[in-house]
Every structure is written in C-alpha cells, then in structure tokens.
C-alpha cells in the first residue's frame, strides 16, 4: 500500500488530492506507475496524457522516471514547479 498525492492541475484533473493504493506487481518504475494510472479512467488519462511532463517525488524527494517505486510510502505526482 502506497499513498499517492497529487498537486496543482494533476490534482484537479484526477479529482482528488490523495489516495491509498495497492500497486500491482508489474508496476516497477515511476514510468510504469504513470502508464498504469493513466489507464484507470478519464480523469487520470487527462492528467497524465503527457506522462513525460509529470514530475514525481518518492518519499518527498524528487525522483526521475527510471527510479523503482520499491517500497515507497508516499509517491507524489505534479506539474513542473513554478514557485520562487
């Protein structure tokens, strides 16, 4: 079980800020996760239509799309940051 968190327009398109989810065994990497989520429904598809543009943090640290999701407690998906 992993907590997924969504921010900014990713959150809006998916329609929730977070959810607890059990990932299937074939979801090994961040990229796998994005492609798997994208198939869930129209909201996810809309949020993740350009998965390469989505930024990801595992346990509150930036992670690239090749990284394994492993035994992450928390994975966050969000657009490129625009703070500062």
């Amino acid at each position, binding site marked *: 079980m992993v907590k997924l968190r969504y921010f900014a327009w990713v959150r809006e398109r998916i329609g929730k800020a977070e959810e607890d989810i059990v990932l299937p065994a074939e979801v090994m990497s961040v990229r796998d996760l994005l492609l798997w989520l994208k198939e869930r429904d129209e909201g996810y598809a809309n949020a993740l239509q350009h998965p390469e543009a989505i930024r990801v943090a595992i346990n509150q640290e930036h992670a690239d799309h090749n990284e394994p999701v492993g035994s992450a407690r928390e994975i966050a998906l969000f657009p490129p940051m625009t703070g*500062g």
Partner: protein
Amino acid sequence: MSARIEPIVRVQAEDFDAAQEIARLTAGRTDIGAVVTFSGLCRDENGALSALELEHYPGMAEAEISRIANEATERWPLTGLTVIHRYGMMRPGDNIVLVVAASSHRQAAFEAASFLMDFLKTRAPFWKREHRADGTPGEWVAAKEEDDAAQARWR
C-alpha cells in the same frame, strides 16, 4: 573559512519582514562583509491579475528548500542563510519569497542568493495559479524554459 552554518528555512502563509531577517543574521556580528537579499513579489504587469494562489507540498517544500540551502552552504563560504517561501493567496505587490545570504565576501553572497532562487524556481514544490481581476478562474502558471536554463548553469 568559517564552519558550515545551519540555514534558516521557513514555509509559511504569513508575510515576512526582510529587515528583521537581515537583522537576525547580522546582529552582534563583525565578520559579515556582505548581505545579499532577494525579495520576490507578486507581480501584475497589466492590471489583469487579482491574486496569485500558491499551492505547495507540505513537508516536501521544507525538505527540498533545506536540501538546496545546505548545498549552497557547501558551495560558498556563507556566514548566514535564510530562505522563506510563502503559500496561499497573494495580492499584487505582496511578498512571496525571501532569500538572505551573508558572507565575508560579496561574490559569495551574490552567487549563493542567485543559486537559491534558480533552484527554488525549478525544484521547490510550489505551483502558482492566477486569479483574474474580472472574477474568472485563472490558469496555472506554466514553467519557463528560461528557469530550467538558469538552473542548469550551476552544474
């Protein structure tokens, strides 16, 4: 070169006072030759913006800013470093972000403050959304390629 200092990092809804933060780094010290302060403000160029809403990732925002700030203290001989980033609703003219870098030498203070801002823009988990003056819901601000380029120059 002095020992590595512990940066002050705050993520908060409330406003901040740049003068007070500068004073906090310099009070009672005689080894600081240069203090560079960056204040980022909510800007409205053409009167169409009523507010900027800043969403953030609580927990990660503090952690990521601390990582960036610690990297700065490793790269430059700083005698003090403060980073404050606000979240929530900002009106044009309001403060958004503050970086104060103190050093015995001006170049270190300038570079560290500039480095901090480039990394905050591209790595700190904050997202800006516009609220328009005419009441219509605004857009999420798009990330700028020039900000990625600005970050890349520190590699």
